[in-house]
Structure formats: C-alpha cells, structure tokens
C-alpha cells in the first residue's frame, strides 16, 4: 500500500505539466550553453587557453561537469529521459481524455445545454420541425456530421483536430526514439577513391570510422569502383558541381552505375555514400616482378588542395621493396611527375617521369601508368533516420492540425417552443467567436421560418 502510494506520487510528479515546462527551459538553456563552449574540442580552443590562463579552476570545473560535451553527459541524457517519461505519461492521460471527447455524442437536456459556457436560446413560434430541418441542412452543408435524437441532435465537425496535441507528444517521443537508435547503432566512415579503383567495402578499408554503442561492424560483400570524377566551376573561386560516376560490383559482377553528387548520395544495402568536396590528383603505379611478370598496382593520392596552384608533394613506401619514394607534381602539367627513390638516405633514382615510364629497381620494375583524380566519400548507416523522419512528418501534421483544425460540437434541444443551442469548448482556444457564424445563421433561419 505504502509502495503503491509512493509510486502514485512519483507518477504524479513525473507527469506534472509544470515539470514539463521546467524541462523545456532546462533543455533550451543547456543547448544554448553548448553553443557557447566548443563541444568535443574545447581543450584545443583559443577560448580554453584564454580562460585557463586567468581562471584555471573554471576550466577544470567546465571539464569536470562535462559542459564541453553536453549532449553525451549523464545529466543531460537523464533530463531528456525524464522529459520523455513526462511526455509519455501526459500523452497517456490526454489520449484517455480525447477518446472520451471523441465519443461524446450523448444527447443533452435543455437545462444541460443552458449550463454550457457557449449557449443561446431561440424562441420558435412557428413549426419547430421545419426549423430543425433547415438547421440540419445548413450544418450538414457546413461539414457537420449530425446525430439526431427525439428532441434534438448533436452536430460535430473536425473532431480529428482533438488528436493534434496527443499526436504532437507522440511524434516527439518517436523522434527521441529515433535519436536513441541513431546514437546506439550509427556507423560513420570516410573513404577516398581514385578513378579506376575498385574498393571492397569493409571495416579495414575505411580511412576513419566511428560507431554507436551497439553497432555491429559492417560485413559487406559488394565493391564500388570510381569510373570517373568531375568537378566544374562557376568561376575560379566557386565550384559548381562535384560528380562521381561509380559502378557497384557484387562478387566481381557489375550491378549498376550511378552518378553520385552532393545531395544525391548512393544508397546501397542500408549504407549511403555521400559525395564530399575533397579531391585531388592520384598517381597510378604498378610494381612488376621481372621473373614472373606479375604486377601489383596501387594509387598514391596527392594532398587535397582546392584550385591547386604550384607543386604538390607526397611520400610513399614502395611495397615489397620498402624504399621511400617522394613524388612531386606541377599541377599545371599533372601528367609529368618528379620522382625520388631513397634507400635509407641514399638516392637510388631521381628523375621526371611521364605516363608509361618504367624504373628498374633490381628484380622489380616500377611502372607509372598515369595520373588520375581521387575524391572522398562519407559513408554512413543510420537505422534511426526512418524513425526520426516518421516523427518529423507526424510532428508537422500534428502542429498544423492543432493550429488550423478547431474541433466543434453543437448540441440542440427543442422544448416549449424554444430551441436551446449550446457548444462545448474543447480547449482554451475555443471562444464564442468560434461558433459565431453558426449562431448567426441559426438566428437567420429562425427569422426566415417566422416570416
């Protein structure tokens, strides 16, 4: 009994609407705070050094409280969790009320109608039936659904508008659930592809990746090949389009080809590949075993540089041989490379090379095939997206419905040559004006019947 009471008391506090207001203020305040303190890289920011020099205890306090990573702190997540409970409990209560209101078609006596906040009494000297019939016809024309009784009727319109606020709360819960799913199961990675390169999609091949707490590492059996990459400019400072033409392979068989652009990602088995604005030159080499003729090929990507001017350099280790190679390319003539090959500190080879040139390195030959372009792609998988977007649609619909759709219900009873007309207010927004047009039309009909 005592435990029951305590649970009831806890539930009462949890579903308190005052508490909801407090949580909205708290969440908004912490969101604002999170924009004032750089999140996740606070200790590398200029603000940190400035503040730390003058108030070291303040910076320690900020780090200790987690204000430099608000969204992942236990206290912020707890606030969101309790707020979610609050919304859920309120929704439950409100849905019960709405179900009751939706079915509220019981007839009312004239005394009950006269007791309603919005009501009017019209004396009818003429035939009451004719009056009722005309009113019924008018209300039907205005979109009301009529449920008739012996001495009156109930007319309803837009009752679905009652669902607006419960739907709003429900949609917020759906969005929060989607965000939770994202947080637990997301995968984000980054790849760089050179023209002609076939890329097996899988964990070891991502340049960088991050996972949600419950994410299972991707095991994929398809590959993508970058057929070509194109970048066009409006003028020298303003890119117009980044486009990659990619081919998708499964078990070595090409499946389809697709143009991937910004805002037009490639979607594949739950994964999405997004075109980035990173690109650069990539030197395509082959290392041929002189004895067997077997060739191993690979790409050396030069650093990304927008509107590249001048010379770009890149170092790489030649596989098998382990020699260090330093490449330089003049971007005004990207098909010519300057190459230096070093063994320890000793220069083995230094020359300019062009497409198809071969450098002999003992038992192997290094072949420079050609210069191509590389570009970057973000890769992501997020099971939360469809849930969040479903919540978004419901949220927009619910807000529009409670702003624009005003549920209306009128009661009419005939007694002693008087018509009692009353209306219920389902929210604080219903005023006498809400039913003004209906009331005026009824008076007009009454005058018409009289004449």
């Amino acid at each position, binding site marked *: 009994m005592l435990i029951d009471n305590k649970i009831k008391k806890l539930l009462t506090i949890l579903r308190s609407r005052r508490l909801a207001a407090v949580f*909205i203020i708290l969440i908004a305040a912490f969101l604002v705070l999170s924009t004032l303190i750089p999140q996740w890289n606070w200790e590398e920011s200029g603000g940190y050094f400035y503040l730390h020099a003058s108030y070291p205890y303040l910076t320690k306090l900020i780090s200790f409280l987690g204000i430099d990573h608000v969204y992942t702190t236990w206290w912020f997540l707890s606030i969101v969790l309790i707020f979610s409970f609050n919304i859920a409990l309120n929704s439950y209560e409100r849905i019960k009320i709405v179900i009751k209101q939706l079915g509220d078609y019981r007839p009312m006596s004239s005394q009950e109608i006269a007791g309603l906040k919005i009501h009017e009494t019209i004396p009818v000297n003429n035939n009451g039936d004719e009056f009722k019939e005309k009113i019924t016809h008018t209300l039907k024309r205005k979109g009301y659904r009529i449920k008739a009784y012996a001495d009156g009727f109930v007319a309803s319109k837009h009752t679905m508008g009652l669902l607006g606020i419960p739907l709003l709360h429900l949609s917020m819960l759906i969005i929060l659930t989607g965000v939770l799913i994202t947080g637990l199961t997301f995968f984000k990675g980054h790849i760089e592809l050179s023209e002609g390169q076939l890329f097996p999609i899988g964990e070891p091949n991502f340049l960088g990746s991050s996972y949600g707490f419950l994410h299972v590492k991707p095991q994929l059996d398809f590959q993508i090949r970058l057929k070509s990459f194109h970048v066009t400019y409006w003028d020298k400072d303003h890119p117009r389009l980044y486009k990659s033409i990619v081919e998708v392979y499964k078990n070595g068989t090409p499946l389809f080809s697709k143009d991937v652009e910004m805002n037009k990602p490639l979607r594949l088995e739950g994964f999405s590949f997004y075109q980035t604005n990173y690109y650069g030159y990539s030197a395509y080499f082959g290392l041929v075993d002189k004895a067997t003729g077997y060739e191993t090929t690979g790409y050396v990507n030069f650093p990304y540089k927008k509107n590249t001017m001048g010379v770009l350099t890149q170092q790489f280790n030649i596989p098998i041989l382990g020699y260090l190679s330093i490449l330089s390319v003049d971007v005004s003539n990207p098909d010519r490379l300057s190459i230096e090959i070093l063994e320890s500190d000793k220069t083995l080879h230094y020359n300019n090379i062009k497409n198809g040139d071969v450098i002999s390195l003992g038992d192997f030959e290094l072949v420079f095939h050609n210069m191509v372009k590389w570009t970057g792609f973000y890769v992501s998988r997020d099971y939360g997206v469809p849930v*969040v977007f479903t919540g978004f649609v419901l949220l927009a619909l619910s807000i529009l419905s*409670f702003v624009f759709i005003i549920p209306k219900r009128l009661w009419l009873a005939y007694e002693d040559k008087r018509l009692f007309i009353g209306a219920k207010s389902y929210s604080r927004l219903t005023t006498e004006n809400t039913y003004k047009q209906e009331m005026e039309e009824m008076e007009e009909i009454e005058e018409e019947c009289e004449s």
Partner: protein
Amino acid sequence: MKEEIILYWIAVSLYGFGSIFAIIGFVFKKERLTHIALLLCAIGLVPHGASILIRWIRVGHGPYINMYEVISSNTWVAMLFYLLVQKRLTFLKQASFVVIPVIFLALGFGLMASARDIPLPPSLRSYWLVLHVLFAKLTVGSFLIAFGSAVLYLYKDNDKHKQLLPHQSLDKLDIAIYRFNALGFAFCVIMIIAGSIWANNAWGRYWGFDPVETWSLVVWLAYGLFLHLRLNRNWVGRRSALLTIVLFFLSIVAFFFIPYLFKTVHSEYLVR
C-alpha cells in the same frame, strides 16, 4: 546591379515613409495616415520584389545565400504576409506602427550586410533547401505579426488607452498573438525538418549541433513553452504578450545574429 540597388532604395524609401505615417497615425489616432502607410508599403512591395527578381536572374539562384539576400527576401515576405493578414483581420492595422518600422530597420541592417554575388555552391543544390528557406521566411513573418500584436496589446491594456481605442477588442489581439505564434511554431518546425532532411542528403546526418541549428531548436522549444504555458497554465493576456516580445527578440538573435557570433555551416555564405 544598378537597377537592383535603385529599386531597393525606392522600396526602402517607401517603407521609411510608411513607418513615419504609421507611427504618426498611431500616436495621433489618425486612421487615414495608417491607411496611407499601408498603401505606401503595398506600393513598396513592387520595386522591392523587382529588385529581388533582378538579382535572382543575375546570380542564378533564389535569395538565400548571403545575409543581404536573406534579409531582403524575408522582409518582402513579412511585408506581404502582414498586408494580406491586416486585410482580413482589420484590427491588426493598428499594429502597423510596430510591424512596418521593424521591416524598415531590418532592410537597413540588410544594406550593411554582405551583398556579394555568390553562385550556388554544390551543397546547396537541393529542393529541401528551398523549402527550408521558404519556411524560415514564413516563420519570421508570423513571429513579427505576433510581436506587433503583442506590443499593441500591451499598449491597449494600459487603462489610460483602453478608453481611447474602444473599437478594438483585447481578446481578439490575444487570440491573434496565440495564432501567429502557433503558426510561426508550425512553420519553424517545417523549416527545421526540411533543413534536417537536406543535411541528411548532403552530409549523411540529420542533426549536427551547428550553432544556428541549435538556436533554431531553442527558438522552437521556447515557442513550444509559450504554447504549453498558454494551454496548460492559462498564460493569456499581458503575460502572453510580454513573453511574445521576449521570444521575438530571441528568434531574431537566433536567426540573424548567431551566424555572426559563431562559425557555423550557415555562416559560410551568409556573412562572408
């Protein structure tokens, strides 16, 4: 370029005169002057719209890349929205002494902002972005009308003035404050949703805690709080009007000043 600037200045001048007439009309209770103010603003919409259109054709994209374009188009939408609304809800004509000067001042701010021609970057080529921007403009327009109604409400609620403006109903203004805040709340959420879908298509994430994103969410939560307090705690009348004024300033800071204060995705082109 020259025609665009000339048309913009003609619009600024008409709105400027409109502001003067609206304020004098309100202070001296001359309804005729208020009508002249509204007429001047309606005329001003033509050169203002033409200026936006000329720029649109020249730069090859809608008015949503830099702050000048954003302010110019936001004020055009807000003015059109207000003029249409006051036609139907005639009691809001009196709010012109707030709405028109705010639009006029915003245009002045737009003149100081960056107006460089920036061609459309690849990341902004999206229909979702167009929706995002359109609803941002409608949001600002709705909040502005709610703000104007709130200032008028507080003025009328003063006992001294209740006698002077008997033809206007405080209840009507109170409902207008609620309705335009609620409308702005609905537009704001559609703006956030469209932006979120666009971000997901462009970068693979629907939320990035970008400062402008975060502040827009704060604005939405704050207006949500307004509705919550109104529907559940009966915050109507003066309290509702005062809160509306605070919220309007919050929304202006969030939408127009945060891009200047923080490095964000939104400030990349807006304030350059």
